[in-house]
């Protein structure tokens, strides 16, 4: 099936630098639906849903927000800091949602792995199941994310 004009436009937007300097797709050659599908099966294998993940991310950001940029111990294995930048960034999907340019940096204390996400990442995962393309500045690997967010399972 041909892609509808809306889908073509969306993918073009995601690859462009309309919203962020290097776009949302990185150097990923897969098309948008392939990326979303593969990440979705990864999440499914881990026994989680997009909502659970987004909810946990939001929880961590909200806790760390109170640190005004300092590291905050969120749980035994996680510390996080939240950093605000000026302005807002729109979601590339056509529904007029805007996110703060708020970036949460999370360190997994035992392994010292560091991941980070923006407010927009949370929205993209929750609403669109999109973890961004490989090579994008804000790509999050679903498997690493799940391991850090839900350490007990």
């Amino acid at each position, binding site marked *: 099936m041909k892609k509808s004009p809306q889908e073509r436009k969306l993918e073009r937007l995601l690859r462009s630098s*309309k*919203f962020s*300097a290097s776009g949302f797709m990185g150097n990923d050659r897969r098309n948008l639906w392939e990326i979303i599908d593969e990440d979705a099966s990864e999440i499914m294998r881990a026994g989680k849903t997009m909502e659970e993940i987004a909810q946990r991310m939001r929880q961590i950001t909200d806790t760390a927000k*109170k640190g*005004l940029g*300092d590291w905050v111990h969120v749980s035994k294995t996680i510390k996080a800091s939240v950093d605000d*930048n000026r302005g807002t960034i729109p979601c590339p999907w056509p529904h007029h949602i805007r996110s*703060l340019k708020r970036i949460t940096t999370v360190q997994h204390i035992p392994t010292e792995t560091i991941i980070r996400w923006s407010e927009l990442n949370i929205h993209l995962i929750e609403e669109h199941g999109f973890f961004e393309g490989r090579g994008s500045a804000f790509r999050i690997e679903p498997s690493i994310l799940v391991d850090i967010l839900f350490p007990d399972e």
Partner: protein
Amino acid sequence: MASFVVPITVISGIGAILAAVLVFAERVITNYGDVQVDINQGDKKLTVRGGGSLLETLTTQKIFIPSACGGRGTCGYCKVKVSEGAGPLLPTEEPYMDAQERGEGIRLSCQIKLRNDLKIEIPAELLTIKEYLCTCDEIIDYTYDIKQFRLTVLDGQLMKYTPGQYVQVLAPQYDKSNEEVYRAYSISSDPADKRAIELIVRRVSDGICTTYLFDYLKKGDKVRINGPYGRFYLRDTSAPVIFIAGGSGIAPIKCMLHDMKNNNNARKSIFFFGIRTTKDLFLEQEMKQLETELPKFKFVPVISQPEPGAPWQGAVGRVTNVAEDYLKQQDDVGNYEGYLCGSPGMIDASVEILTKCGITEDKIYYDKFS
């Protein structure tokens, strides 16, 4: 022979006729002629060619409505009041308008096409906003993620701005970005300098404009800016002042302090500057210098998470807590005016402690990063 000449002639003829009709239609239908735009009830009248969007037409007339998306209808900043001639609200505008704005006739200027005479109302200061071509003649690294850019205007006078206001910088197309975007940065320099302004910019991860400024802009390059914008400025009273800023939020406050020095302003003032570690500290010397020049000014850098072993004698903790401790010791807290610049989180926390200490909200002014 005629057997194929006739059909081909007929079909080509029809094609040509249709093409001619379309060309003609384009001339006639999409030609809107000249239209009049009346700004602020006769303050200014423009006669312009119709057909373009209100935003882009105003820009060609050197009237700059703030807009971050460049007219694509995704940022919702370019609102103007159109009192006559705009037609019904378009579906592309609806998401950005609340009920009150709809009632007042507020519209997105990038979505309105100039088809007929319009009457619009815009804040008077927008008429003073101009575009300037500058050269970047100095780039200073302050910290690992903060730089200062000095922009000297190429010809003529620089804008008259009120200390605390901001300008928009145009990031042109470059390797990574195929579109022009505008981003806002506060002026940090001494207002006595009439030829140049300085901007203090913190790198935004994967940001379009900061990536351009940090990685692509070189000394000697040309930069386009327009401004000034904003309502964040020092109120003309003699009340004591408490400034609270974090990171690059120091910029407008530095500008205000220079201005106070130039006018021999003897207001009592104190500046709490919040940063995370000693690596984030910058402009310390300049602030110390201002302390000697302004007898009643005090600069208090506050570090929230000093590295172990760092030689730091100053205040430690949350900038808001240190400011609160200070205010609690003042007996004239109610007189203070608060000026804040920083992240939304910091502003919210500061507003909370300032009001708790007895400063009413109408005397707290801020430039929220949003």
